[in-house]
């Protein structure tokens, strides 16, 4: 009887995942969808603890299980609540890595059971004593889980800045060799004597960890969202492999669902940046690919604007558009920008935000960031709407954005970002660009916008600059 209740709980859980994901893809229902999926997950976990039976025996070691769950609960809750909104992308990567590691550990323990069950026949090949389906699930779960774990950790490190982009010639070839070795050892484990199958198995796991590092390492920081989404779907598949092992439909459906949805999401993200997945994965976008055309040398002079002039221009403009970018997120300037906006609105200026879908390091990054500072939802314009409005805009204030306002995407076919939809800020009367320095953005290419006659540069940290602008405008 308890088995069938468990099965019903799992069915309900699977339905909540499907509903949850579906609702998550519409703005109005997204939050409810998340809660529904969380509810289903709680049900599945509770049902497993109390109703699952292994060969007719209920589960034991409750003390251990609850201790571990409490540790995970408290840690997870604290980390998720404390971390700043700007660090969300790397946090997703971190949690994804935890899931990958969990999947890999399960597969490793199950391998250990399988290995020990066959120790009494140490000289017979593993393939003739072990169950093929189980081995397949174990090896796939451990390889994918390990790769996802190490890859996510690298992505996490790259996003919080502790790991730098390193790429060298022949790196992709080396990665391919590691991948072939992973598969080679996986097959070798299957055919090796049952008494010694553990050594090639652990080599396989180790190489999978190495592969995760090697796979993510050459990919530039700006492409991390795509990589995290891909690793996310990997972890889903690893979870599904473990589900297969236990004949557990809740794990199988949840894992495969995330695997499939994650892959599609990865492709959608690439499409939003107008790049192919292949280009992201082996493009190694890291400053090496300068624009084919260096741009006309005569235009290479930039014009700086002083804070007081900038304040004056903004205060007396009729219509101002703010283009936020990653620089704003780094400087934690979302509240300052909201203050500036309020101040300008009080003075009768029409202030809007132009949000490029991939500004920042994650699609939707800017929406989340500005939402944190209570910026009105109505003031956030999507790219198409914003592009219609630039023509009638007096001043565009670009805050730490670069590639998303680069006109090279429209008129330089040799540029690596050619074809990416961008914000047409150059159509406005005047553009003020706030940056920390003249360093190129993540795509590692020059931006001719900065040399345009319409553009004035305002160097400095976004938060400091905004605060000074605010005090200057107040004095006017």
């Amino acid at each position: 009887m308890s088995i069938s209740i468990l099965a019903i709980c799992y069915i309900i859980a699977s339905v909540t995942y499907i509903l949850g994901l579906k609702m998550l893809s519409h703005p109005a229902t997204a939050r409810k969808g998340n809660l529904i999926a969380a509810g289903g997950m709680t049900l599945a976990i509770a049902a497993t603890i109390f109703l699952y039976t292994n060969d007719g025996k209920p589960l034991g070691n409750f003390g251990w299980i609850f201790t571990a769950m409490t540790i995970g609960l408290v840690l997870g809750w604290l980390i998720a609540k404390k971390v700043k909104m700007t660090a969300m992308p790397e946090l997703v990567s971190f949690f994804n890595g935890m899931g990958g590691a969990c999947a890999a550990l399960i597969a490793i323990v199950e391998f250990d059971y399988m290995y020990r069950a066959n120790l009494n026949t140490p000289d017979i090949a593993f393939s003739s004593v072990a169950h093929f389906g189980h081995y397949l699930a174990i090896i796939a779960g451990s390889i994918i889980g390990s790769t996802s774990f190490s890859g996510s950790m690298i992505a996490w490190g790259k996003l919080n800045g502790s790991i730098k982009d390193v790429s060298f010639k022949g790196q992709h070839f080396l990665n391919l060799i590691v991948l072939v070795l992973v598969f080679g050892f996986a097959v070798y484990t299957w055919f090796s004597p049952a008494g010694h199958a553990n050594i090639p198995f652990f080599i396989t796991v180790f190489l999978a960890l190495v592969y995760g590092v090697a796979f993510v390492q050459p990919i530039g920081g700006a492409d991390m969202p795509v990589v995290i989404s891909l690793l996310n779907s990997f972890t889903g598949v690893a979870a599904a492999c473990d589900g297969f092992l236990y004949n557990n439909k809740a794990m199988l459906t949840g894992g495969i669902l995330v695997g499939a949805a994650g892959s599609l999401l990865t492709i959608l993200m690439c499409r939003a940046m107008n790049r192919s997945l292949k280009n992201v994965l082996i493009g190694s976008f890291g400053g090496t690919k300068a624009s084919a055309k260096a741009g006309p040398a005569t235009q290479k002079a930039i014009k700086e604007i002083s804070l007081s002039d900038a304040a004056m221009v903004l205060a007396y403009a009729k219509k101002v558009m703010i283009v936020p970018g990653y620089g704003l997120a780094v400087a934690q300037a979302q509240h300052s920008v909201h203050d500036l906006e309020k101040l300008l609105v009080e003075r009768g200026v029409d202030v809007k935000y132009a949000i490029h879908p991939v500004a920042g390091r994650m699609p939707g990054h800017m929406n989340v960031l500005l939402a944190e500072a209570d910026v009105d939802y109505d003031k956030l314009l999507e790219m198409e709407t914003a592009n219609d409005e630039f023509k009638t805009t007096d001043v565009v204030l670009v805050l730490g954005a670069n590639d998303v306002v680069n006109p090279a995407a429209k008129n330089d076919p040799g540029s690596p970002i050619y074809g990416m939809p961008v914000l047409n800020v150059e159509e406005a009367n005047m553009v003020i660009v706030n940056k920390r320095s003249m360093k190129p953005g993540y795509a590692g290419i020059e931006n001719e916008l900065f040399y345009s006659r319409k553009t004035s540069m305002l160097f400095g940290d976004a938060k400091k600059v905004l605060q000074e602008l605010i005090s200057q405008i107040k004095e006017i």
Partner: protein
Amino acid sequence: MEAISSFLQQNLDMIYVVILMIFLGFEIINRVPSVLHTPLMSGANAIHGVVIIGAIIIMGKAESDNYLALILGFIAVVLGTLNVVGGFVVTDRMLEMFKKKKQKS
């Protein structure tokens, strides 16, 4: 070859589930606005935390002298819980902000 065909035979229902889920996964999130890419990814991230069920099973069935299973299982449960709890809480935090905006406007 024989191993593969018997594998297919034994797991036919699982294979059906897998194939249907793949199509469902694709269908569900088609046409998602780009603003929701990050929360959706985060939500999906939380859902694959279902792997914790496997970790609980590992822990729950381990004999008291099987230290490898106990230790690795313990770590797996901690990590799995982190994934589930962290994933859902982070997603909720992201979406909370969108929601607040909506009501205001």
